[in-house]
């Protein structure tokens, strides 16, 4: 970079206007040239380095869904009246919300934290749980359960132990310390996930109808408040982000790509947020996810009256050397942003003080239609928030039917030799029993607290987890997650449907009635036309299946770029189904317990 900047002299809007030809490291930030040119066109000038930071993270595949958006619409389009009936909040919000009766609602969502969990399995998985739980809190719900769907490499590969034990310990550490019962999940080993494990975490929350909150920045003059952990250098090297030639003088900043989780801080944050909601001290709360302050400010502003003014130097820092751009992109965990009316600010601060949660007022909602961010009195960001958060690029990427799939399908089990002697049969049975994918998962589930909160009606080894919502009536919900990457590799359309059907069955057999779906679509690179074909087929299959079963998709997550070198993982659409049960006392556990019960085999 020709004119490097430092902490005290950030690249300002006027400087950007005055130096249109300055070369900017958009490529290193993950932006394509046409995307960069588009940003210049939107702004009518070159972006400041702060704006470039914001656009680059918000326009990343992870935040903008630029390759998947055109397909995901099907989840909203293929719906019947019945599917809409119990839906209080559908796709697009932090998490979908379903009416379960008696004035109760349930919100749930599943999300991936795959790549961080390969780099640093313990912290990657831990912060994956933390992130999904904050989505649930921001809806006004109390989180009441978590689940985890995991895919690892071959069990005998030397690196697998590092990843498995790190991931499981991370989930156990974060979930247990947060006091959320883990009620189920999946564990699968296959060498296609060797350098790209899948860590999908699900969280469920419950709320009364009247407690539902959506995160938006309405009401000119309302305060924008950041609270929770201090902002540090965590995860700045993460996502698509910072390259050595980026922002500061004096050589490359070495920032770690991982985030460190503090479940205790999150537990306190949960109680603090619930008290803020209960005492009606906030208009809305937004969690800080992958793109940190960039995401929270631009999304809140986009969903509200459209304008916001922020003084970035008011952000409480853990590391005082952070630049403005790094503060905008930091992925530090356990932070929330709230919109508070001026009259209620004092009450708000009293609650955060009670919980020892650090808080700073960053700015306020405006009617300018612009998101303006100052840094020590100088304007470093001035954008229309929707251009950052909503109207990012949308791609209709090329798709190509994989030529190899016909041969793969033709190579069916009918070609395999059959066991012909008792010894061969025995050997096969022993091989099956000894296979890691069929073996007991107790060594994992014994590390998860299933008792905390005292409402767990079903968990391991049941097919679905079940939690009581109302202690008076016994009203409750059940959840199961399922996926089969091998089926989806053979046929992504049917594979996604099989995952849906399996999760649906696993909920139904607990005695609950399935009512809603969340999904986490784990695929290879969207720039690979064959992967894009798999993705398009899986979404089509899943949306058709949901229409057939008449349960809506309320939200989910897409994770692309899951591959080792050029080799993509098997398409792995993880489907979570939520069901409702009037009284958890009527639940049906998986085990047979009473002598004399009859055994039936249903289906074909």
């Amino acid at each position, binding site marked *: 970079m020709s004119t490097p900047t430092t902490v005290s002299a950030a690249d300002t809007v006027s400087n950007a206007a005055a130096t249109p030809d300055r070369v900017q490291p958009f490529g290193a930030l993950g932006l394509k040239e046409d995307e960069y040119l588009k940003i210049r066109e939107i702004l009518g000038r070159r972006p400041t380095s702060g704006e470039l930071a914001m656009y680059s993270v918000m326009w990343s595949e992870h935040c903008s869904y630029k390759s998947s958006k055109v397909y995901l619409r099907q989840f909203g389009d293929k719906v019947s009246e019945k599917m809409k009936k119990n839906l209080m909040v559908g796709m697009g919000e932090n998490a979908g919300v379903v009416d379960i009766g008696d004035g109760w609602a349930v919100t749930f969502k599943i999300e991936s934290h795959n790549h961080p969990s390969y780099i640093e399995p313990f912290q990657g998985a831990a912060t994956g749980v933390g992130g999904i739980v904050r989505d649930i809190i921001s809806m006004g719900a109390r989180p009441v359960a978590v689940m985890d769907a995991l895919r690892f490499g071959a069990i005998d590969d030397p690196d697998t132990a590092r990843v498995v034990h790190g991931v499981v310990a991370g989930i156990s550490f974060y979930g247990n310390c947060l006091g959320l019962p883990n009620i189920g999940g999946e564990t699968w080993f296959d060498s296609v996930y060797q350098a790209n494990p899948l860590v999908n975490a699900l969280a469920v929350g419950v709320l009364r109808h009247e407690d539902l909150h959506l995160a938006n920045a309405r009401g000119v003059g309302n305060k924008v408040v950041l609270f929770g952990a201090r902002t540090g250098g965590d995860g700045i090297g993460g996502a698509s982000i910072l390259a050595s030639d980026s922002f500061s003088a004096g050589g490359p900043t070495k920032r770690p790509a991982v985030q460190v989780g503090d479940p205790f801080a999150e537990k306190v944050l949960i109680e603090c947020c619930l008290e803020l909601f209960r005492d009606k001290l906030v208009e809305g709360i937004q969690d800080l996810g992958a793109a940190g302050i960039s995401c929270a400010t631009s999304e809140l502003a986009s969903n509200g009256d459209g304008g916001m003014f922020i003084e970035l130097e008011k952000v409480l820092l853990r590391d005082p050397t952070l630049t403005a751009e790094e503060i905008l992109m930091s992925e530090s965990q356990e932070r929330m942003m709230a919109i508070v009316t001026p009259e209620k600010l004092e009450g708000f601060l009293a609650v955060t003080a009670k919980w020892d949660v650090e808080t700073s007022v960053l700015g306020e909602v405006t009617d300018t239609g612009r998101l303006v961010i100052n840094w020590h009195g100088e304007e470093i960001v001035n954008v229309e928030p929707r251009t950052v958060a909503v109207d990012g690029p949308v791609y209709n990427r090329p798709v190509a039917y994989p030529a190899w799939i016909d041969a793969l399908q033709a190579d069916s089990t009918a070609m395999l030799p059959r066991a012909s002697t008792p010894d061969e049969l025995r050997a096969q049975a022993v091989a099956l029993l000894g296979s890691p994918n069929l073996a007991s998962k107790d060594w994992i589930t014994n590390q*998860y607290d299933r008792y905390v909160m005292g409402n767990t009606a079903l968990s391991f080894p049941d097919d679905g987890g079940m939690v009581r919502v109302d202690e008076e009536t016994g009203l409750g919900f059940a959840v199961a997650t399922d996926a089969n990457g091998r089926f989806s590799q053979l046929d992504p359309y049917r594979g996604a449907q099989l995952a849906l059907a399996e999760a649906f069955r696993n909920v139904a057999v607990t005695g609950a009635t399935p009512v809603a779906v969340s999904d986490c679509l784990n695929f290879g690179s969207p720039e690979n036309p064959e992967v894009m074909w798999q993705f398009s087929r899986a979404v089509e299959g899943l949306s058709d299946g949901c229409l057939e079963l008449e349960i809506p998709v309320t939200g989910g997550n897409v994770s692309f770029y899951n591959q080792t070198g050029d080799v993509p993982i098997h398409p792995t659409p993880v489907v979570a189904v939520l069901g409702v049960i009037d009284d958890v006392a009527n639940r049906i556990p998986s085990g047979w317990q009473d002598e004399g019960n009859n055994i039936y085999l249903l289906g074909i």
Partner: protein
Amino acid sequence: MRIGVITFPGSLDDRDAQRAVRLAGAEPVALWHGEHDLRGVDAIVLPGGFSYGDYLRCGAIASFSPIMAEVIDAANSGMPVLGICNGFQMLTEAHLLPGGLIRNELGSFICRDQKLRVENVNTAWTNQFEAGAEITIPLKNGEGGFIADAETIARLEGEGQVAFRYLEVNPNGSINDIAGISNARGNIVGLMPHPEHATEEGFGPDTAAAMRSGVDGLTFFTSAIHALISA
């Protein structure tokens, strides 16, 4: 009968302990770590969880909470005090009970339905058990290995202050399979397993009779009520 349950930042099983108190027939009273006020309760439960994230040492930071000054005074004057898991750790950190709790022998967190023998039925929290009763209640901890120097162990064993012992499996490497202890007077009891999670049918540990039907934990709370009534 009013039994207080103290909530510390990071307490997790506080609501469960309150529910258990209610199911046992007493009135649960929520107490807050930051106050110097026991609200006139007759007994106190320090619940499980990860107070202050279990950072530093489990229960260590919580043991410096304002309310602990009152808890220490009340405990020393004979009020029934029960420390469950993290609460047990706090009681040792506050030196109300001897010994300490260290990381499980095998390193990882463990959650299991744990069989115990009630070794001492002369405490405020065990008097309704039959002598030598074998019970099953959930255990869930990462740092539950009970340790103390040889002299302390000899004293605990000699004077009947070992209240509970692990049966079949010693899940965390505790010396002499010790799962819980009491003070000499018997009003203060601490244990790693969780009686409050075995108080309601359908949500407790499995029993031979039916899944999740174990309610052995209820007797801890009815014992406290009995102790208070007969005091």
